[in-house]
């Protein structure tokens, strides 16, 4: 924690600030936003971030298609979203201004790199005249700085070539914004030295640019705009700023350690899931095996093969990949082996909006298989919650011997928030409980092993190859109840389909009671799943502060649904379900419980903002 001595008399304190960095894909906006976030996290603010970038690695420079943005919300109190309208917009070129200005709050602050607003770039962005000069920004506070030129000048004496110097202009912007919001400078300077260790020219250029930006704020009489956000009050503990994909990867590792079975990840690269493959590949010292497979089908196949061998089989993907894995999921349902299938949802169908978020794979996760093939579904609700959700998915997979689909999305995957590190001793134990001995007698009274005998959870034994006396042969053909022998018997098939259904439903017996937050006696109940959690938390909070009554339930376990959910739903006059799809959970709730669950939909590739949900919920509560 940084002490707050840095607060200066001329600094106006605010509770929270939303800053949006926007520029060309090559301008380093993700890095700039990430650094600003890190400095704020170390300072002790609560925060939430939303990176947004185009699908193209380098879209044509200066075009609207190439705009990359990073929004960060910093606060002195608990927040759950990356914020609604930004208070401050940093634009590194005209395209960023054109694309992002509509988001800015009225009267907000615009920071612009004036050097980039030349005739050519203005034309590319579709401006007839220069918005920095034509008065169109009069309603805003405009801070215009020749960032490219000033950066080049301070780098000249360092022996850095002008072309390389220009690439440091994002650090100028970061320095300016850091000054404006009273961020400590040393974490950024330290980071520059560590990140570029051995590249002295780059260190010198980035440091010089950062300091120049900082100095620009001091000397350009921008004090009126200077703001500070005090550290937030957090529960005692050790914190780190973490994104969803990292938290999810760590949750898998922690669960595998607790279960004492190594992770086997089969994965094929796909946005926005690839970072889980990257993260797990770094942790081979935990015994993690990663296979970058030839395709999505091989990825889940290899994971299932590893599970058959007694490892924790995991496969990661996004929507199109989950579609390809469907056949193998059917096999996994039939084999009744542990398997964790992670879908980091993105805008669909098909390639859709690969770098934008959406949560429209719920019905595919639920029903998208051949035959009666039920499997449990778990969904993460915030970046740091991806840790707990991954742990829960592993718990269910291992205890109940079943494939589990874990749903996250692009917003959770890349968004960050502070996470209080769990006490390792507090993490629940998971028992793999491998079979070691025969479990039945044959007609001759000899001890034999039947692979489809079941325990009280209706789970079958996990008997891994190498175990003497338990040799058995299983596959995708229907199996006889108990013995696991091939069976085409009609009554047996009916029985097995019924058992597979019942055994998955039984998982709900292991859930804690469902928590209803807010006003239990409200008329309106908001039911939700996944990454809408943050925006709903914020919107519901606003409603209640303004005297409206509202209750909310957020689901982690989407299938089977909690046993007490039906009773809860029937206790409210109105049930609404905000979702980043056209109403998939609401459809399921209507089918399961015959309640009039109404969807609130958003499929714009961006998460709900608290403001728009607040507005929608007010409408519903009339």
């Amino acid at each position, binding site marked *: *924690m940084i002490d707050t001595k840095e607060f200066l008399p001329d600094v106006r304190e605010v509770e929270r600030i939303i800053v949006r960095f926007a520029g060309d894909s090559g301008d380093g906006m993700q890095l700039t936003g990430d650094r600003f976030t890190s400095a704020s*996290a*170390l300072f002790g603010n609560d925060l939430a971030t939303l990176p947004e970038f185009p699908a193209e690695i380098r879209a044509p420079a200066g075009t609207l298609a190439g705009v990359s943005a990073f929004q960060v919300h910093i606060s002195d109190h608990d927040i759950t979203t990356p914020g609604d309208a930004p208070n401050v917009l940093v634009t590194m070129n005209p395209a960023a201004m054109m694309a992002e200005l509509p988001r800015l709050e009225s009267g907000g602050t615009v920071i612009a790199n004036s050097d980039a607003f030349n005739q050519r770039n203005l034309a590319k962005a579709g401006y007839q005249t220069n918005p920095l000069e034509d008065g169109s920004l009069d309603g805003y506070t405009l801070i215009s700085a020749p960032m490219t030129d000033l950066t080049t000048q301070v780098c000249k004496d360092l022996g850095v070539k002008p072309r390389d110097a220009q690439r440091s202009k994002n650090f100028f912007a970061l320095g300016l914004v850091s000054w404006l919001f009273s961020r400590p400078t040393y974490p950024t300077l330290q980071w520059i030295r560590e990140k570029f260790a051995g590249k002295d020219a780059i260190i010198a250029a980035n440091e010089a640019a950062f300091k120049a930006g900082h100095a620009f704020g001091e000397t350009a009489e921008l004090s009126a705009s200077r703001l500070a956000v005090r550290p937030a009050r*957090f529960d*005692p503990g*050790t*914190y*780190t*700023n*973490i994104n969803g994909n*990292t938290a999810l990867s760590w949750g898998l*590792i*922690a669960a595998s*350690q607790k279960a004492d079975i190594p992770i*086997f990840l*089969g994965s094929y690269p796909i946005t926005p899931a690839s970072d889980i493959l990257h993260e797990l590949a770094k*942790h*081979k*010292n*935990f*015994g993690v*095996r990663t*296979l970058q*497979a*030839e395709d999505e*089908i*091989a990825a889940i*196949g*290899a*994971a*299932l*093969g*590893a*599970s*058959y*061998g*007694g*490892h924790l*089989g995991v496969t990661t993907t996004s929507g199109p990949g989950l579609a390809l894995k469907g*056949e*193998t999921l059917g*096999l996994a349902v039939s*084999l009744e082996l542990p398997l964790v299938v992670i879908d980091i949802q993105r805008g669909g169908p098909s390639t859709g909006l690969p770098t934008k978020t959406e949560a429209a794979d719920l019905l595919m996760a639920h029903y998208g298989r051949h035959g009666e093939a039920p499997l449990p579904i778990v969904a993460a609700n915030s970046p740091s919650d991806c840790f707990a959700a991954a742990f829960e998915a592993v718990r269910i997979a291992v205890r109940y011997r079943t494939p589990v689909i874990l749903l996250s999305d692009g917003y959770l995957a890349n968004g960050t928030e502070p996470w209080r*590190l*769990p006490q*390792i001793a507090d993490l629940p134990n998971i028992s793999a409980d*491998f079979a070691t001995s025969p479990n039945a007698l044959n007609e001759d009274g000899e001890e034999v092993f039947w692979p489809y005998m079941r325990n009280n959870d209706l789970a079958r034994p996990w008997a*891994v*190859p*190498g*175990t*003497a006396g338990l*040799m*058995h*042969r*299983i*596959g*995708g*053909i229907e199996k006889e109840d108990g013995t696991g022998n*091939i069976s085409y018997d009609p009554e047996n098939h009916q029985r097995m389909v019924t058992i597979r259904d019942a055994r998955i439903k039984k998982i709900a017996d292991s859930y804690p009671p469902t928590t209803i937050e807010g006003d239990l006696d409200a008329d309106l109940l908001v039911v939700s799943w996944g990454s809408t959690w943050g925006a709903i938390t914020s919107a519901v909070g606003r409603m209640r502060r303004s005297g409206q009554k509202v209750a909310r339930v957020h689901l982690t376990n989407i299938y089977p649904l909690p046993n007490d959910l039906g009773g809860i739903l029937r206790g409210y006059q109105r049930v609404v379900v905000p979702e980043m799809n056209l109403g998939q959970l609401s459809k399921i709730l209507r089918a399961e419980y015959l309640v009039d669950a109404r969807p609130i939909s958003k499929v714009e590739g961006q998460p709900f903002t608290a403001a728009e949900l607040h507005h929608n919920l007010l409408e519903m509560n009339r």
Partner: protein
Amino acid sequence: MTNTIHTTAVTTKKDWTSDQEVRWCPGCGDYSILTAMQLLMPETGVRREDTVFVSGIGCAARFPYYMNTYGLHTIHGRSPAIATGLAMARRDLHVWVVGGDGDMLSIGGNHLIHALRRNVDLTILLFNNQIYGLTKGQYSPTSEVGKVTKSTPLGSLDTPFNPISVALGAEASFVARTHDMDRAHMQEVFRRAHNHRGAAIVEVYQNCNVFNDGAFAALTKKDARADMLIPLEHGKPVRFGANQERGVVLDDGVARVVSVADVGVDALHVHDETAADLSVAFALSRLADDRSSPTPIGVYCAVDRLEYAGAVDAQIATAQADRGPGNLAELFTSLPTWEVN
């Protein structure tokens, strides 16, 4: 779940025979392949519980049910991928993959070639009968051009795969061919494949007496073999015929059948299955492009190359030696942290 390899078991054919009724058509070539396997296994000394047969879909894919080992009957084409995960997770196991020409070369072609190039320690048996049996008689990716089947009433137009050429093109480190009419030859080739470290693939010419009867008869019937099958033996000149009167020469990289009397023994190609350059093995695989020309059988190549699962384990061992075994507390604090009191 240790990775210790056990090789102590004393067993008989009966020990390797499961209690399941074999349900292939009477007269199917699969029976003799099964027998060869059940006879071979006791000779290897491996334990049944350390042996896994993985298969996809098709007649051949029923194989695991009949072996008294661990067995996994999976889905169409995916067995090389599923077996890859198993073999990577469990290096102590002997993982066999069994499938037909449709399973391995059509729907599963991608998985087969990638398993081969990775060189995962798998022993893959490709039962090639040049027809789809379980779906009742459609042409397969190894059927000859012009094949008349239910799905090709006017004759198939597809150029077939040569499975040996495909495997060599996929960088396989062990490639062999045998046939279902010669149990001793099968057993010997299977033994070699089993002993190979890395991905081994054996193409077995297998007769489907219901939908493609006699497909290989011109090569494999007893009185034809001497003239039609060219045994590949490491370190020996490649020659065949009842009186060893014919042989194979390499002519500017192209394999050709010659009369030994015409060229002399010294001109014959001497088979080197360990040659790292697979182009000679490839040339041999192109010698016969139909089922009526002399065809090489035996081990085309057996090359020592980095085995994948062992290499993965070595990376894990190195990571653990460098950084110690995984520690959650260290992991959680690996990003910048701050304390709140």
